[in-house]
C-alpha cells in the first residue's frame, strides 16, 4: 500500500498537486462554468490525454512525435464510427431535417448515401458492437504505434527525423481519409453524432456526466503515467533520453522500450480522441492532421514537458487561450498565440511547471508573509496554482 502511495500518487508533494487538480476539475470548474463552457472544458481535457502521452514519450523518453494526431484521430474515428452507425439506425425516429431523413437509407451513414455507397463497407462492421468498438479504440492506434515504433526504432530513426516522419504519416492519413470519402466522410468528417447506446449525448445532463467521465479517466491516465515514471522503466526512459548508447550497452533493447512508451502514449491519445467524439459529437480529418498535432506538442511544452499534471494545465490554458483570444480579438489572436509559443520556448523551456518550480518558492514566501499580515484583517487564503515538476523521480 505504501509503495503504491509512493509510486502512483508520487509521495506527499505529488498527492497535493493531484488533489488540487482534482478540486479544480471536480469542484471548481463544474460550479464556476455554465454548461456551454463546461462542455468546452471537456473538449480541452480530451486534448490533455495526448499531452500526458507526450510527457511520457517526449518529456521523459526523448521521442518527439509530431504525429500524435494520428492516434488521437484513429481513436476518435473508431468512436465516431460507432456513434454514426447508431445514429444511422435511429435516423427515421429522429426529428430534424425531415427530407434528409426520408431519403437516407436506415442503417447507413448519411455520407455513404451521398457517395452512392449502397451497403455498409466491411471495414465498418466491427463498429456495430459497442464492446468491440471500445476494444478497437485502443487496439488500432496501439497496433499502429507498435508497427511504426518497431520499424523506426529498430532502424535507429530518432530525434528530428522521427518527428518529421511522424508528421508525414499524419499527412498521409489526412489525404487518405479525405480521398476515401465514401468510407470516412471525407473532409467533412463524421458529423451529427447523437446517441450512445440509446443515451442522448447532446443533452445537458449527458454532457455533465461525460465531463466527469473525462476527468475521471484523465486522472486515471495521470496515475498510470506516474506508475510508469516511478518504476525502473521511468528511470531508464530518462537515461535513454540523455544517453541512448549507454542504455543499449547496459543490456536493454532500446527499441523495445521506446516502442512500449510510444504505444502507451498512443493508447492515451486514442482514449482522448474517443472522448472527444463523445463530448463534441463529431470527428474531422482537420483534427488529425499536422497542425493539431503540433498544437498537442505545444500543450505539453507550455505545461512543462516533464510534468504530467503540468500537461493538463498546458492543454487547458492553451486551448482556453485560443478560444478566448479568438473571441476577443478575431483579427489579432494569431499574434498573441504565436507570441506565447515564442516566449514559452525562449524563457520557460520547462513550461509552467518549470516556472512554478522556479517562482513557486519565491512567491510562496511572499504569500506566507502576506497571509500572515492579512489574516488579522480577513481570513482568506489564496491557493497558488499547483503544478509540480519532475515527478516520479
Amino acid at each position, binding site marked *: 500500500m505504501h509503495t503504491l502511495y509512493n509510486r502512483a500518487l508520487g509521495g506527499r508533494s505529488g498527492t497535493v498537486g493531484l488533489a488540487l487538480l482534482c478540486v479544480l476539475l471536480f469542484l471548481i470548474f463544474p460550479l464556476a462554468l455554465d454548461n456551454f463552457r463546461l462542455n468546452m472544458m471537456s473538449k480541452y481535457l480530451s486534448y490533455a490525454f495526448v499531452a500526458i502521452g507526450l510527457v511520457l514519450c517526449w518529456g521523459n523518453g526523448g521521442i518527439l512525435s509530431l504525429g500524435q494526431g494520428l492516434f488521437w484521430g484513429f481513436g476518435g474515428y473508431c468512436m465516431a464510427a460507432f456513434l454514426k452507425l447508431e445514429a444511422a439506425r435511429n435516423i427515421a425516429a429522429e426529428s430534424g431535417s425531415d427530407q434528409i431523413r426520408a431519403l437516407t437509407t436506415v442503417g447507413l451513414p448519411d455520407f455513404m448515401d451521398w457517395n452512392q455507397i449502397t451497403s455498409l463497407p466491411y471495414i465498418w462492421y466491427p463498429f456495430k458492437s459497442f464492446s468491440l468498438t471500445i476494444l478497437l479504440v485502443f487496439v488500432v492506434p496501439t497496433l499502429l504505434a507498435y508497427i511504426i515504433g518497431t*520499424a523506426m526504432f529498430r532502424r535507429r530513426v530518432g530525434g528530428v527525423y522521427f518527428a518529421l516522419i511522424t508528421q508525414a504519416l499524419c499527412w498521409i492519413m489526412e489525404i487518405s481519409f479525405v480521398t476515401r470519402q465514401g468510407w470516412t466522410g471525407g473532409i467533412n468528417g463524421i458529423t451529427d453524432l447523437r446517441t450512445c447506446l440509446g443515451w442522448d449525448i447532446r443533452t445537458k445532463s449527458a454532457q455533465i456526466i461525460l465531463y466527469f467521465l473525462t476527468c475521471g479517466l484523465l486522472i486515471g491516465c495521470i496515475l498510470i503515467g506516474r506508475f510508469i515514471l516511478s518504476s525502473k522503466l521511468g528511470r531508464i526512459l530518462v537515461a535513454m533520453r540523455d544517453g541512448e548508447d549507454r542504455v543499449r550497452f547496459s543490456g536493454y533493447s532500446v527499441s523495445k522500450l521506446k516502442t512500449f512508451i510510444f504505444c502507451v502514449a498512443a493508447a492515451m491519445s486514442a482514449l482522448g480522441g474517443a472522448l472527444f467524439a463523445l463530448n463534441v459529437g463529431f470527428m474531422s480529418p482537420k483534427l488529425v492532421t499536422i497542425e493539431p498535432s503540433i498544437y498537442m506538442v505545444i500543450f505539453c511544452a507550455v505545461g512543462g514537458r516533464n510534468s504530467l499534471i503540468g500537461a493538463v494545465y498546458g492543454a487547458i490554458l492553451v486551448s482556453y487561450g485560443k478560444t478566448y483570444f479568438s473571441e476577443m480579438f478575431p483579427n489579432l489572436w494569431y499574434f498573441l498565440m504565436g507570441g506565447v509559443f515564442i516566449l514559452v520556448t525562449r524563457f520557460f523551456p520547462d513550461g509552467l511547471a518549470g516556472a512554478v518550480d522556479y517562482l513557486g518558492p519565491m512567491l510562496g514566501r511572499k504569500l506566507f508573509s502576506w497571509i500572515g499580515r492579512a489574516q488579522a484583517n480577513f481570513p482568506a487564503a489564496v491557493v497558488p496554482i499547483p503544478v509540480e515538476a519532475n515527478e516520479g523521480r
Partner: protein
Amino acid sequence: MPLILATSFAELKDIFLMQGFAGFSLFAVFLLMALGLAIIFGQMKVINMAHGEFLTVGAYVTVFLSHMVVNHAPKLLPYYFPAAIVCAFVVAFILGYIVEIGLVKYLYNRPLDTLLATWGLSMILQQACRSLFGAREDTATLPEWMMGSWSPSEGLDIPINGMFLLALAIVMVLLVYALMYRSRWGLKVRATMQNRAMAGAVGINTKRVDRVTFALGCGLAGIAGAAFTTIGSVSPSAGSLYIVDTFIVVVFGGAASLLGTVLSAFTIAQSQSILEFFLTGVLAKIFVLVGVIILLMIRPQGLIASKVRR
C-alpha cells in the same frame, strides 16, 4: 487504353516529352524550396517551421513591386522581375537576420525547441501578411515574355515559367555550392557548424557566421517565393503549403549534403510526376510519401551521407 491507341505516335512522343519536362519543373520547385532549408536545417540543425513564411514574404515583395511597376512605370514591366528576385532576397535576408538575433540564437542547442518557437513565428508572420495585404489572394503581373509556352513544334508546348524556374534553380544551386564549398566564407560556415568551440578558438566570429548563414537560408526562401509567383498563388498561407514537402526533400537527401538535396528533389519530383500521370494526384502523393518513409527507414541518414567513424 483505347484512348492512347487512338492517338498517333508523334503525339505520344510530345506528351512524353512534356511529361518529362513536368517532372523537371517540379524538380525545380522542390529544389528552390529546399535550398534555403538545406542550409538552415541541414547545416545549422534549426527546424525552421517558419520557412514557408519567408517564402510568402518573398512572394509579397514581388507582388508589391509588380503593383508599383504597373501603377507607376508600366514601361519597366518586361524588366522588373530580376529586380524583384533580388529585392525578395534582400527583404527575406534582413527579416531572417532579425529573427536570428531575436529568437533563433537562443535555441541552437535545442533543435526541437526551435520547432515550437518557429511555429509561433510562422503564425505571427502569417497574420502579419494577412493584416498588411489582406486575406485575399493576390497576383504579380508577369512580364509578357514569362508567360505562355515555347512551342518548337505543333502540339509540343514547353512552359516558359517552368524553364525559368529550372534555370533559376540551377543557378542558385551553383551559387550556393560556390559559396559553401569554394569560398573562404563557406569554409568558415562549415567549420563553425562542425565544431563551434574550435572555430571560435581559431578566430572565427561564430555568432556572425550564424546570423549570416541563417539569414542566407531565409533569403533563399525569399527567392523561391518570388519565383513561385510565376506558377502559384500568393496568399498569407501560401508558404505553409510547401513546408512539409520541403522538409521531406531535405531529410530524404541526407540533411547536410547539397548533392543529396539535389538528388532527392529530383527523385521525388520525377516519381511524383510520373505517378500522377499514370495514377491520380492523390494516390501519387500518398505513394511518394510512403516510399520516402520506407527508404528513410532503410537509410535513416538519407540518400547521401558519408559514413563516418563514430
